[in-house]
């Protein structure tokens, strides 16, 4: 045991001391924030305002284009079509919409939208939507629908999802929040397992190529060496995660003291748009829902899956590292090991949309995919028998993979030369030392 501790210590210290670790610890969260920042920014902002000239020969749509809009600047003109085209060609405007006199509610065609620089699908769809909405209000009275009926039709609908547990207790369930929490949990497990298992593999390979193993296995058992390495690197991973959390908390605190969040405005906007809703704003609604969420059980389950997923995959990666002589040869053996992980992430979207399906169920029981899939499902299904069964299977999977890995490891470690075949590796499994 003393030797395993020594190995853990070496693996830990040599890695934590590295410049790349320190750099990653600082840059990692920044990179993640930047990464998500770009995604969020891209989805919120619709690019620059588009300047569009409109010639409406029917005169029906004036009110549409006089409305304030963040995305467009409309010039409601009373000129000739040619003039508008010229302006577009000169580049003064981004688009030019022409509604001809021939346009009527019975015969709705002839509307042209000219553009030169590419308006983009969204802008076109927006303009289309605006016109359609107006046409609707124009058409409905013709069909005999009154203003009151229309208002009644337009009432927003909100479904409150309530999950009923076994004891018949009701609690609010929140699909969006559940999805986000589940996917974040699954992603964190995926990234960490991948990053640090690869690190274990590289470490094993380094020992093998530098021939340091022969010196070491004359003083410790290969099993102890593997265990020490996996645990040491795992601790590095936990340290990094911890550092990121601390840095994240500190930086958001600092940031939030600089940036003033316009709570009042948000509230005002919410009140205006959703006058029929309860008097709470969206943000406090989120906090209310988060408060309602059972975080303790999710956190406990997360830690369990995090640790055992890492231990399981790291030992398999260690076996891959021990089987070959150089990094290029790892590719072939990496594939079957990484497949389940990648599959799990690829399936995450489907799992979120149908967390109770049989696909979701089975993949959350199979140990190789269960850590990621169960983390995604967990916020939906809650802690229960299914989770316990899945955890049990993961534990069995962990024991089994450590057994497989240590048997491949002890022989692979001292085998140099030709890259082994799968059948040879299988024979190693059964061979006595």
């Amino acid at each position, binding site marked *: 045991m003393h030797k395993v501790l020594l190995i853990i210590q070496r693996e830990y210290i040599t890695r934590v001391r590295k410049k790349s670790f320190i750099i990653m610890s600082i840059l990692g969260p920044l990179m993640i924030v930047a990464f998500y920042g770009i995604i969020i920014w891209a989805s919120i902002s619709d690019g620059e305002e588009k300047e569009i000239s409109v010639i409406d020969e029917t005169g029906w749509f004036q009110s549409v284009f006089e409305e304030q809009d963040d995305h467009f600047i409309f010039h409601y003109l009373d000129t000739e079509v040619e003039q508008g085209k010229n302006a577009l060609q000169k580049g003064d405007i981004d688009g030019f919409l022409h509604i001809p006199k021939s346009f009527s509610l019975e015969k709705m065609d002839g509307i042209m939208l000219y553009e030169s620089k590419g308006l983009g699908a969204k802008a076109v769809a927006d303009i289309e939507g605006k016109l359609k909405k107006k046409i609707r209000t124009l058409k409905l009275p013709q069909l005999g629908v009154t203003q009151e009926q229309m208002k009644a039709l337009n009432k927003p609908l909100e479904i409150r999802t309530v999950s009923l547990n076994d004891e018949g207790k009701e609690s609010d369930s929140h699909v969006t929040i559940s999805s986000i929490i589940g996917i974040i949990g699954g992603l964190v497990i995926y990234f960490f397992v991948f990053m640090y298992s690869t690190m274990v593999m590289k470490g094993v390979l380094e020992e093998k190529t530098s021939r*340091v193993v*022969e010196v070491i296995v004359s003083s410790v058992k290969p099993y102890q060496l593997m265990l020490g390495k996996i645990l040491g690197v795992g601790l590095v991973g936990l340290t990094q995660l911890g550092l990121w959390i601390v840095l994240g908390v500190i930086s958001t605190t600092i940031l939030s003291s600089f940036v003033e969040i316009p709570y009042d405005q948000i509230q005002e906007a919410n009140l205006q748009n959703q006058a029929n809703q309860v008097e709470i704003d969206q943000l406090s609604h989120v906090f209310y829902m988060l408060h309602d969420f059972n975080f303790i059980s999710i956190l406990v389950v997360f830690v369990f899956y995090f640790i055992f997923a890492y231990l399981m995959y790291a030992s398999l990666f260690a076996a891959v590292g021990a089987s070959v002589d150089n990094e290029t040869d790892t590719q072939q053996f990496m594939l079957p090991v990484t497949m389940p992980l990648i599959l799990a992430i690829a399936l995450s979207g489907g799992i979120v949309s149908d967390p109770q399906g049989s696909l979701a169920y089975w993949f959350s029981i199979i140990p190789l995919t269960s850590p990621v899939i169960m983390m995604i499902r967990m916020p939906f299904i809650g802690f229960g028998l299914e989770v316990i069964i899945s955890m049990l299977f993961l534990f069995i999977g962990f024991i089994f993979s450590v057994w497989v890995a240590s048997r491949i490891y002890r022989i692979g470690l001292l085998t140099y030369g030709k890259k082994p075949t799968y059948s040879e590796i299988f024979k190693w499994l059964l061979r006595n030392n």
Partner: protein
Amino acid sequence: MNILEVKGLTKRYANHTALDNVSIKVPKQCIFGLLGPNGAGKTSLIRSINQIISPEEGEIFFDGHLLKPEDVFKMGYLPEERGLYKKMGVAEQILYFAQLKGMSKKEAKQKTKIWLERLSLIPWHKHKVEDLSKGMQQKVQFICTVIHEPALLILDEPFSGFDPVNAQLIRDEIIRLKDDGATIILSTHRMESVEQLCDRIALINKSKKVIEGTQSDIKKAYRNNQFDLTTADPITIQETPHKMIHESTSQLYGYKQTIQLEEASPNDLLKEVMQKTTVLGIQENIPSMNDIFLEAVQNGNIKKLTNEELNA
């Protein structure tokens, strides 16, 4: 008293037998040469002693008892393929290996300092191993092997990668370790080192031990009655009834020829020659370890040692 006794060791791999009923005895405080061509099974034997692999048959006794896992603490192993952590510091690395061999941190620190001084590596103790020259890396590796003062040292090609000056330094250290009570198993292809250092020798060929004994006994067994004769005038083949191995060559003083005697004794030879010319010198041509190695491995000429029983 033998520090190590290997009895009937057999190790089979899927396609071949690496060790076939090999037995050796290594007395305490001697330098034991383990010789054999490449692929003969030396590494398998060494790995078995180190408990890296476990053989199918046979037993290994260490210091009188059946080999136990803890015995690795009393052994030091320098593998032929050297290996150190390239990114680790020199002193740090030695300290790590010393502790893996069961030394306390405090003790390991003291010994590290002593050894770094002894092999003049002090200015380098903080450098990473990759910054060192190959010779210096070999020195670090040597320290890692011997730092825990093992009772049994197994050195596989310890002089490779050293210049003559450093090779001599390591040779002196090996002798010093022996004088301090250690037993050394030396596996090498450098026959001049074997001649210089080894008290006992075992030769392994094709998975079998073919010869084992003291260096002098082995040489005695392989002496073949050849004599270097130096005379004032050359002796031609016609002039002697004996077999001439090397014909006369002119030397600084007189002529030298090598003669093989069959039945006759050196005295008979001298009597013959003295009638023709002046004898300036005569010396028995004792085969070198290199000759014996080639004779045994290439020609399969295995001599039975006269006092093998006595040795055993």
